[in-house]
């Protein structure tokens, strides 16, 4: 256990915890985009910055990555912190002017987009946080999508920008994306994602379309459960 101070309050936390986790456990709100409990934090979005003081030195760090430490003094809402967050927010909004999620966050922080930050038109709503890529690789285990290119051309998608053979249509990427960049369309018996169309399995009991056939095949292959058994949805099991 380590003891330290956050926003003037003495707290105790488990060693190895991040400042963000402890802040949240203590009811302190810190905005984040790229942090999700099912994948390791990466510090991509920079929204979660806080000020930490250790000895004589004060600096700005990303709270999602910074581990707590004995005697640390953390401030989450100083002017310096807010200035960095506002700048990050301006840059994110300039990249993704259409994102409603960002707009709502900005509103909450009292930020209006400034004309000095010229809005992009071709980036969609992607902030390049890599959450979807990590979910696909670490949680689902198929690595159907990745990042490619660099700098202003960096983007997310299946390799060679063509239908991914590895994709099973599970939709984990669309679910985890913090800015709703990834579109998943569902029509009767079909699901479309990353330009590929997947046939959906109808539950053998209730007839509801509940999962892509390819995903069930993948699960069956991984777990050894027969496809027949998997053809029944969760609510009918």
């Amino acid at each position, binding site marked *: 256990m380590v003891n330290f101070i956050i926003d003037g309050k003495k707290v105790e936390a488990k060693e190895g915890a991040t400042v963000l986790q402890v802040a949240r456990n203590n009811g302190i709100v810190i905005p984040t985009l790229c942090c999700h409990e099912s994948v390791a934090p990466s510090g991509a979005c920079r929204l979660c910055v806080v000020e930490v003081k250790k000895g004589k030195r004060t600096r700005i760090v990303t709270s999602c990555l910074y581990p707590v430490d004995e005697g640390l003094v953390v401030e989450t809402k100083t002017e310096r912190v807010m200035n960095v967050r506002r700048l990050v927010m301006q840059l994110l909004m300039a990249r993704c002017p259409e994102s409603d999620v960002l707009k709502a966050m900005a509103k909450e922080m009292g930020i209006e987009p400034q004309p000095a930050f010229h809005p992009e038109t071709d980036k969609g709503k992607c902030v390049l946080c890599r959450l979807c890529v990590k979910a696909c690789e670490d949680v689902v285990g198929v*690595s159907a999508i990745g*990042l490619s290119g660099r700098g202003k051309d960096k983007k997310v998608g299946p390799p060679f920008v063509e239908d991914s053979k*590895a994709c099973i249509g599970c939709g984990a990427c669309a679910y985890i994306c913090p800015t709703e960049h990834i579109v998943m369309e569902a029509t009767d018996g079909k699901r479309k994602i990353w330009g590929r169309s997947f046939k959906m399995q109808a539950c053998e009991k209730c007839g509801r379309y509940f999962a892509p056939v390819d995903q069930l095949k993948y699960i069956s292959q991984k777990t050894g459960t027969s496809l027949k058994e998997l053809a029944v949805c969760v609510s009918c099991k």
Partner: protein
Amino acid sequence: MKTAKNKQKSVKSIIKKYDGDKTAMIAILQDVQEEFRYLPKEALSSISKQMEVPLTRIYEIATFYNAFSLKPRGRNLVEVCAGTACHVQGAANLMDRIERDLKICCGETTKDKKFTLEEVRCLGCCSLAPVARISGNIHPNLTQDQIPKVLANYK
């Protein structure tokens, strides 16, 4: 032209050279590029399968570094330096002239597959600006007028 089978074989031997070490991915891709003058899609897929590295990872590396090309390159790679020194010495004019002479734009390959034209940042010999590197040879203090002659040497 290499047959598909031969291609497979050379990819295999390149991987073997590095003992299939995943951390040597960049070196492996460099060797593959040296072999084929670009990174063929099938080569990347087979590296992915043989080394058990997701294709997305390999594609990320291959598209990150400028030195890698996913499009077939010509026999001679013409790299016009657009670094600061060369830029100031008129690299843009050189590029212009080469584009006109080869009838291609920067980033393209001539129909006869003899030349691929690319722009690079600083070749590390700024005192010779403006420079172009053609098939590995540095051509120092290039002027527009010299270009037809220089290119003819590589035809």
